[in-house]
């Protein structure tokens, strides 16, 4: 396909790898982190981790939206699905995530949980089924938030009274700031997310780069994009001068997508948010703003009370922070597999454990 295949050229990849080796020679071991589920998948799929020199470690951060959604959110979504006139719409990969006693998938046979490709599917269904209350599970980062915001505005335009969003949306920069200053993880550079950056632009990373002297390179998804970005990070690390570079400038503009940013700002407001395995991160979540409270399920129903259990044995939290690799978990590929996931990182195809399991990385 145009503008995809060209970025998979093996000859050029070999050339960049040689340059990476040259730059890495004699360098103290460095860890770079990607914080984007699609990067996690691409890194495993193309076997990039094992092609890198010994002293260059690539770790997967909390870039998978499903994986960072806290368990009590899942439990509440399941409890909502048990209410008679409520129909839940969700992106597909949320369905298998285990809650405390059940998963949305197990609730599906009663027809109350449906898969949406877009939030608009839920709006359309609500328009045709006025006797039902339709709740869309709003999960995702800045790439998904504007699409859900647009759906909410459609619902407002259509004057729908039976469409609601349960917002678990999150924003990435506060999590990156937290990880940047974590001495245990000791990241020496960020491979910044591609599509999140298409929306938010390069500016949010400037502050991270300056404040923590952290090299940041916005990277595309193809193997050459990722390799070139790693080379750029290494060159920054060598020069000891941190800055923000945009390798993916064919899509990401410095300003981001102003239309998408405006609709996020209109429909949502910033709140503190809990990340699975990490805890509450200040100002890292998006709630529906007051103007749209008619569509906020949390403002229109007494939310079910749930008792959420703590994950036993699952080290998803440490995996999400890049402190541990999936292989270091004693459940990995034994009790926990994609068919029988114990934690969120094994559920979504974008999760570090699932990607690791599927492509069996060298384990570096």
């Amino acid at each position, binding site marked *: 396909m145009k503008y995809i295949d060209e970025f998979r050229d093996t000859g050029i990849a070999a050339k*960049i790898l040689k340059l990476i080796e040259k730059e890495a020679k004699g360098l103290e071991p460095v860890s770079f982190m990607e914080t984007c589920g699609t990067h996690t998948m691409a890194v495993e799929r193309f076997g990039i981790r094992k092609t890198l020199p010994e002293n260059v470690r690539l770790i997967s951060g909390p870039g998978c939206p499903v994986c960072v959604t806290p368990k009590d959110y899942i439990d509440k979504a399941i409890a909502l699905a048990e209410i008679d006139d409520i129909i839940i719409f969700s992106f597909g990969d949320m369905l298998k995530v285990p809650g405390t006693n059940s998963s949305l998938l197990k609730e599906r046979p009663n027809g109350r949980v449906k898969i949406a490709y*877009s939030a608009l599917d839920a709006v359309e269904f609500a328009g045709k089924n006025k006797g039902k209350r339709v709740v869309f599970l709003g999960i995702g980062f800045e790439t998904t938030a504007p699409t859900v915001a647009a759906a909410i505005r459609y619902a407002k335009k259509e004057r729908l009274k039976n469409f609601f969003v349960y917002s678990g949306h999150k924003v990435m920069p506060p999590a990156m700031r937290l990880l940047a200053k974590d001495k245990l993880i000791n990241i020496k550079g960020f491979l910044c997310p591609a*599509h999140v950056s298409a929306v938010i632009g390069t500016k949010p990373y400037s502050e991270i780069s300056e404040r923590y002297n952290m090299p940041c390179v916005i990277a595309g998804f193809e193997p*050459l994009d990722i390799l070139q970005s790693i080379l750029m990070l290494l060159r920054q690390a060598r020069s000891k001068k941190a800055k923000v570079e945009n390798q993916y400038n*064919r899509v990401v*503009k410095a300003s981001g997508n102003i239309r998408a940013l405006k*609709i996020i700002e209109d429909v949502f407001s910033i709140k503190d948010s809990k990340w699975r395995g990490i805890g509450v991160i200040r100002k890292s979540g998006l709630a529906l703003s007051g103007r749209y409270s008619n569509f906020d399920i949390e403002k229109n129903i007494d939310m079910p009370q749930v008792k959420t259990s703590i994950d036993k044995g699952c080290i998803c939290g440490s995996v999400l922070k890049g402190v541990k690799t999936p292989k270091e978990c004693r459940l990995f590929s034994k009790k926990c597999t994609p068919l029988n996931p114990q934690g969120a990182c094994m559920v979504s195809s974008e999760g570090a454990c699932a990607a690791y399991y599927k492509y069996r990385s060298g384990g570096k």
Partner: protein
Amino acid sequence: MKILKIEGDRANVSSGGVQRAIGINFLKNPKIGDYVIVHAGFAIEKLDTVKAEETLKLLEEIQ
């Protein structure tokens, strides 16, 4: 994905023979033939083909 048809804030796009309808609310001056990045039923940005060619040239000459 490539835009084939535009109607208001909706467009038909195709990729590898697969066609689908998406929202183009977030695009500035979308045109037929534009390559777009699609996420959850919406185009989130256009792909700048000039910049793509520049990056490819840079990759070919990388040192």
